[in-house]
């Protein structure tokens, strides 16, 4: 039997971080020497052997961890062994692999060390089923073997290379604190434009009075907070940009290879048959501009922290359809055939209207209770209404966006999640369950919410709200899944008049 191969020796040093908690003992000893002894340095030095012992123990444990971790390539899969006290052995079959990833981090490049990870449909949602830091010369054959045994490679390769401008747009959209920065900028600097200079001055005077009462020198601190948010956003933008520059997606046979990264290069081999879904995301701005950001959902891709599962950074509709035909012809986009009726429009408008009313009521009560701060309250009321009105706009657009379509066993689901418009293309086989939910009001109006769970290591749920029940029932029949009891009743009721006639 072939021996287990070990990780790159640098893994010993990286493993040490797991045992750094043991340093608490030298720290406690130092505190004891500091508090309870007279001759501090000599007493501390006398017991220095203990600190050295702990450091040796930490390094030793790192070494044992490295020594007990190993992998070997077998005929059917990757055999992986790990654990010091509780030894875990697992075999990951090649045909079950959904994603094999190779990550070349810039600081490990001089050492020729590469992170290799492999993932299946099962296992933990937040970590890879197999992950090891390997020598480059060992990593390449492993990745090649995983790919070769899953597929017969074809000569024709179709490649998609986005422009840097498109990657910059994605980074702009995906950077987290953009909304917050825009909002704060409007709050602090745009107040004058909205309400006039007098009110702006009054707001800042009031704010300075309140903050001055709370803490000394708050305005510079506020500026600091603003700068931090802006800096945070800039950093997030840069990280996203660097992570996704030199992006490419190539389709060859039964697998898709995605590469990205300017400094640290990441390579993913994704088995096409194990892709769960393709998801397009838009916000109001990108929808108005006709731009899409397209993401891929395959177990193991985009799993790590701050990692996005990008397929196309940003593109227009035509570009999207062409590239999708090029890379994933199995996933075809279709028009929504089941859409909300005009009489269900109120169901889209009531939640944002309730938010607008609720926020107004709250500020009106505050207005009555605090008569001295009318102008400040007016400004705060207007500012807090902005997200609510934005939500109303999103919901109006959502009414036209929402729907379900099906073509050749591939569903296209259109719905809104928070402030984002989503279009999801999912094959029938990757749907786990379908629920049809109806509230009392929906029972009266004859519409329903369709909740679709798709394949995922965690939970991936899509809620398509307020679509006609009977049409939803018809489109769901295509899934060959048992129909809910409620639908069967509805169907019977619909059949009765025809049988009577």
């Amino acid at each position, binding site marked *: 039997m072939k021996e287990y191969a070990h990780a790159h020796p640098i893994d010993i040093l990286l493993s040490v971080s797991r045992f750094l908690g043991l340093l608490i003992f030298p720290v406690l000893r130092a505190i004891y020497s500091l508090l309870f002894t007279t001759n501090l340095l000599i007493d501390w030095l006398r017991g220095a052997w203990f600190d050295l012992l702990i450091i040796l123990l930490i390094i030793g444990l790192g070494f044992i961890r490295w020594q007990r971790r190993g992998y070997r390539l077998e005929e*059917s*899969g990757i055999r992986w062994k790990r*654990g010091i*006290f*509780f*030894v*875990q*052995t*697992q*075999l*990951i*079959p090649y*045909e*079950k692999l959904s994603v094999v990833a190779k990550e070349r981090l810039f600081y490990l490049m001089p050492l020729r060390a590469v992170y290799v990870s492999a993932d*299946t*449909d*099962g*296992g933990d949602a937040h970590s890879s*089923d197999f992950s090891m830091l390997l020598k480059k010369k060992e990593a390449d054959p492993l990745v090649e073997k995983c790919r070769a045994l899953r597929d017969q490679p074809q000569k024709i390769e179709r490649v998609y290379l986005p422009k840097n401008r498109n990657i910059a747009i994605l980074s702009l959209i995906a950077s987290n604190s953009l909304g917050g920065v825009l909002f704060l900028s409007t709050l602090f600097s745009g107040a004058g434009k909205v309400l006039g200079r007098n009110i702006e001055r009054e707001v800042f005077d009031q704010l300075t009075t309140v903050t001055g009462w709370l803490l000394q020198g708050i305005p510079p601190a506020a500026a600091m907070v603003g700068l931090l948010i802006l800096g945070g956003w800039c950093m997030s933008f840069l990280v996203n940009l660097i992570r996704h520059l030199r992006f490419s997606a190539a389709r060859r046979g039964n697998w898709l290879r995605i590469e990205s990264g300017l400094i640290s290069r990441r390579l993913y081999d994704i088995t096409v048959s194990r892709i769960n879904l393709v998801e397009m995301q838009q916000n109001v701005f990108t929808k108005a501009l006709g731009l899409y950001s397209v993401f891929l959902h395959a177990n193991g891709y985009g799993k790590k922290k701050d990692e996005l599962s990008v397929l196309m950074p940003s593109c227009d509709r035509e570009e999207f359809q062409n590239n999708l035909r090029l890379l994933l012809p199995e996933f075809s986009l279709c028009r929504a055939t089941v859409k909300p009726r005009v009489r269900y429009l109120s169901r889209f408008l009531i939640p944002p209207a309730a938010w607008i009313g609720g926020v107004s009521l709250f500020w009106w009560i505050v207005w009555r209770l605090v008569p001295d701060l009318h102008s400040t309250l007016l400004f705060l009321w207007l500012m807090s209404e902005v997200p609510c009105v934005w939500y109303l706009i999103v919901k109006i657009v959502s009414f036209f966006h929402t729907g379900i379509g099906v073509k050749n066993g591939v569903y296209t689901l259109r719905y809104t999640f928070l402030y984002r418009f989503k279009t999801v293309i999912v094959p029938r086989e990757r749907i*786990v369950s379908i629920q049809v939910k109806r509230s009392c009001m929906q029972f009266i109006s004859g519409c329903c919410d369709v909740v679709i769970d798709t*394949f995922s*290591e965690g939970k991936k749920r899509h809620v398509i709200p307020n679509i006609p029940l009977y049409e939803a029932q018809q489109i769901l029949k295509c899934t060959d899944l048992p129909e809910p009891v409620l639908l069967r009743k509805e169907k019977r009721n619909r059949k009765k008049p025809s049988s009577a006639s």
Partner: protein
Amino acid sequence: MKQITLKKRVLVWWECAAFLAAILLAALVLLIFVPGTWLWYLLLWVLGAVYVLTSFLYLPLLWMSIIYCVDDTCLMCHGGVLFPKTRVMHRERIAFITRVQGPVSSMLHIATLVVRAAGGTAVVHMVHEKQAEELEQELYGGIE
């Protein structure tokens, strides 16, 4: 349908663990509480009663209730005394299997299999090493 039950040594190991836990708890009670008080007596009596119930009733019943079955289509895990539970996992959904062995289980030649599938995990607790290996082989044989 192939059935796997637990070996007697597993029950012995559980009994030993329960005895050690009871001894440890009793020692804590004897050390912490004042001897001869009503609380001291109450704690010792409750501890004794719990130990007797666990050791002579619950653990043997639990040991007897645990059965694992495997056929062409699925893996079935059954177990539980107060709330018996049966978990059925389709073999075609199985992604991979992890075998776990601690220091004691290595000594007793027993292993635990964690069967990971798309959407869930089933655990085959403390079966004999040989049975674990056979089960693993059989389940991997069903992977298409």
